[in-house]
C-alpha cells in the first residue's frame, strides 16, 4: 500500500516537473510551424524550387547507393 502511494507521488512530481517543459516545447513547435507556413506562403517559388532541388539530391544519393 505504502509502495503504491510512493510510486503515485513520484509519478505526480515527475509529471509536474515535466509538464511545463512539454508545454514550452509544444509552444515552440507551433510557433516554428507558423513561421515556416508564413515563409512558404510569402516565397512559394523559392520554396518549391528548393524542395525539388533537395529531392533531386536525395534521389541521386539513393540511386548511387542502390
Amino acid at each position, binding site marked *: 500500500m505504502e509502495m503504491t502511494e510512493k510510486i503515485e507521488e513520484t509519478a505526480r512530481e515527475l509529471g509536474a516537473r515535466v509538464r511545463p517543459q512539454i508545454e514550452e516545447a509544444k509552444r515552440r513547435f507551433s510557433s516554428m510551424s507558423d513561421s*515556416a*507556413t508564413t515563409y*512558404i*506562403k510569402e516565397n*512559394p517559388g523559392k*520554396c*518549391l*524550387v528548393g*524542395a*525539388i*532541388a*533537395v*529531392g*533531386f*539530391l*536525395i*534521389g*541521386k*544519393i*539513393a*540511386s548511387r*547507393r*542502390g
Partner: protein
Amino acid sequence: METHAENPPNGRAAGDGAGAKKLGKRMERVGHTAEQVWDRTRDSFSDIGDALDIKGRVDRHPFGTVAAALGIGYVLGGGLFTPLTGRIVRLGVRIGLRLAVLPMLKQEMEELVSTMEDEEQGKARQAASKRTTRTRGEEP
C-alpha cells in the same frame, strides 16, 4: 591625317565598314529575337503557373505542396527504383495498415465477443428454465 580605322594596313577599309554595319544589324536582330523568346517563355511559364494554380495550392496546403515538390525532385533524381523507396513504401503500408485495419479488427472482435456472450446467456437461460420445469415436475 589618316587613322587606322579609315585606312588599316590590310587595305579592306570599305569592306570592313559594310561588314560592321551588317554585324550591327545582325546583333540587333539577335537581340530582338532573344527578347521575343524571353517574352514568350515568360508568358508560357505564367500560363503554366495559372493553369496549375501554384500560388493557390501553396496558400491552401503549404507543407503538402513542398512535400509534393520534394517527391517530384526525388523521382527526377532517379530515386524511384531504389531500396530507399522500397523501405519508405513498406513503412507507409505498415502505418496505413495499423491505422486502417486495426480499428476494423477491433470492432469485429468486439462484435464476436458480444455474440458469444449473448449465446452463453441464452444457453444459461435455457438450462435454468429446464431445471425449473424439472424441479416442478418432481414436486408432488
